């Protein structure tokens, strides 16, 4: 079945540094979603990208969808301790069309 590969698995940064997580698929995606899960919490929807080459921004977060719609990235500028958590990408896949999640990138931020 369809898989979305997410890298890196872990990222440790100093507060103020930038952070990027990548999501890749071997097949063309109809759309991609991004979620954030704080430690001990539940996943929370951040954004959905649909169009080829789409770029969306939410304050310090920049989301991109590749031209071929096979990859996506989430970039955080000048990380803060409030950015700590695990970031997941998710795409509709499989014969049933349900969301398939990447394994996530766990971000830790050292003050």
């Amino acid at each position: 079945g369809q898989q979305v590969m997410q890298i890196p698995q872990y990222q440790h940064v100093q507060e103020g540094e930038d952070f990027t997580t990548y999501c890749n698929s071997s097949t063309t995606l109809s759309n991609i979603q991004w979620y954030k899960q704080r430690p001990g919490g539940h996943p929370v929807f951040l954004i959905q990208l649909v169009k080829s080459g789409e770029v969306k921004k939410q304050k310090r977060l920049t989301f991109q969808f590749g031209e071929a719609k096979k990859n996506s990235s989430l970039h955080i500028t000048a990380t803060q301790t409030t950015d700590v958590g695990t970031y997941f990408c998710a795409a509709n896949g499989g014969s049933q069309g349900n969301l398939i999640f990447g394994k996530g990138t766990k971000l830790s931020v050292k003050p």
Partner: protein
Amino acid sequence: DAGITQSPRHKVTETGTPVTLRCHQTENHRYMYWYRQDPGHGLRLIHYSYGVKDTDKGEVSDGYSVSRSKTEDFLLTLESATSSQTSVYFCAISASSGRAGELFFGEGSRLTVL
């Protein structure tokens, strides 16, 4: 929040005992999902429902069954719990009329099988 609650939030049980987790929504959404989350595996779909009495398997459905007798309630049952089912279970609802929309997750149910 999306009006979705899970119960119990924490449970410790012994191998071989039945366990039922409940997901309740107040949003009247059609699609409901059960995921499990384990370190190194991310979120994996167990079962989902697309309406009352309409359910289907996800990628890790073995050992689990579900029921949806009312729009607002989606139950996940482990008929005979095993240690490999120790996990955090999340219920989710789809915000759109179809299955491709954003998901709203419950707070999670942490299950420990001894």
